[in-house]
């Protein structure tokens, strides 16, 4: 098998300016009927080019009761419920499964429950966090970090318009969060995943490595930096 070549990049801005970038960007249209509230659901994409922080997204005006429900499965060695802080804390070999669309392993998971019920507003995964997210084609995106924070919020920015913020922020690692798929490896701290948009942003230090597909030569779906050779 032909060895993979790697190109290391130390600037996301440079990346965005290269025409070759689009050669391997996501070509399939984003799904339109996907549930919006699923934790870690990210049927992606290689569309890494969002340097802007994950921000607000206009939400549908439909009543909440019409929103699709997703079951999130959590297993662990032990757990405790803290009625004062209204948190469920899972300890030891914690495994989270979102209908096989995403899987998470960690040593400790803290789920904060809103006092009036509803979606958990904050989920903190700590200690050897490993996330595997499947994209539309079934390919796996593998993320490792020390910590991952899922944050969910609904706000009303203007009358009649609801906006949701739903992100997962990865921090820490060896030496920082690492995202790996078949085509590239990204090291960034922090690494922010916008769950509804299914995109990543890297507001801090970032390092990217691209793998040239075997036998791709100068094909358009090769490394965007092929043209530099």
């Amino acid at each position, binding site marked *: 098998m032909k060895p993979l070549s790697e190109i290391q990049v130390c600037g996301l801005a440079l990346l965005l300016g290269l025409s070759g970038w689009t050669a391997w960007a996501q070509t399939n249209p984003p799904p339109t009927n996907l549930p919006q509230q699923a934790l870690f659901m990210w049927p992606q994409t290689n569309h890494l080019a969002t340097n802007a922080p994950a921000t607000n997204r206009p939400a549908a005006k439909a009543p909440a009761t019409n929103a699709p*429900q997703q079951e999130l499965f959590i297993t662990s060695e032990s*757990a405790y419920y803290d*009625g*004062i802080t209204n948190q469920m804390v899972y300890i030891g070999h914690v495994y989270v499964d979102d209908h096989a669309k995403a899987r998470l392993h960690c040593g400790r998971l803290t789920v904060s429950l809103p006092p009036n*019920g509803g979606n958990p507003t904050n989920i903190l995964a700590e200690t050897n966090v490993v996330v595997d997210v499947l994209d539309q084609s079934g390919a796996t995106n593998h993320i490792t970090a020390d910590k991952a924070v899922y944050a969910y919020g609904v706000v009303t920015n203007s009358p009649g318009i609801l906006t949701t913020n739903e992100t997962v922020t990865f921090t820490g690692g060896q030496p920082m969060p690492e995202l790996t798929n078949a085509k590239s490896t990204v090291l960034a701290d922090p690494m922010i995943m916008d769950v509804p948009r299914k995109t990543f942003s890297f507001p801090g230090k970032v390092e990217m490595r691209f793998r040239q597909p075997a036998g791709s030569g100068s094909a358009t779906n090769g490394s965007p930096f092929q043209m530099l050779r």
Partner: protein
Amino acid sequence: MKPGAKILFFAAVALAWILGAAGARSQSLPMGSGTNLSSVMYFEPPNEQMVNTRLSGAEMAPLPGAKYDVKRLKIERFGLSGKLEGVAEAPQCIYAPLDGTANSSGHLVLSLDEGRIQTQGDGFSWRQNEKSLVISNNVRTIIMMGNAKLPTL
């Protein structure tokens, strides 16, 4: 038991397991065995009229050390609005009313937020004063995501 906390014991299908008058608020303990146990704890003042936690069981038998073997345990926790916030159920546990604890090596099912969060496991310890519930082994949870309670426009 914390000062100010109140406990009411009702013997609905009584076999005379309450010392003194049934329903007396007290630090007194139930004696003997019985069925349909119900123990109610209230919020601290000024909400002392509001039920905080209700512990109930189908059967109860005394054990040494002011403890009781309770069958078909059910612990219900309420908010200040009276809304049921969570329910824990177990086939059996050891209940210590003076300590405000219940524990068991058996199975437990915990339901929070009207069933949106369902947790079960084996072995547990409930501490009323700390408002905590520890599940020791084989924890499994299902969280229903997506039906968010959005603000009304």
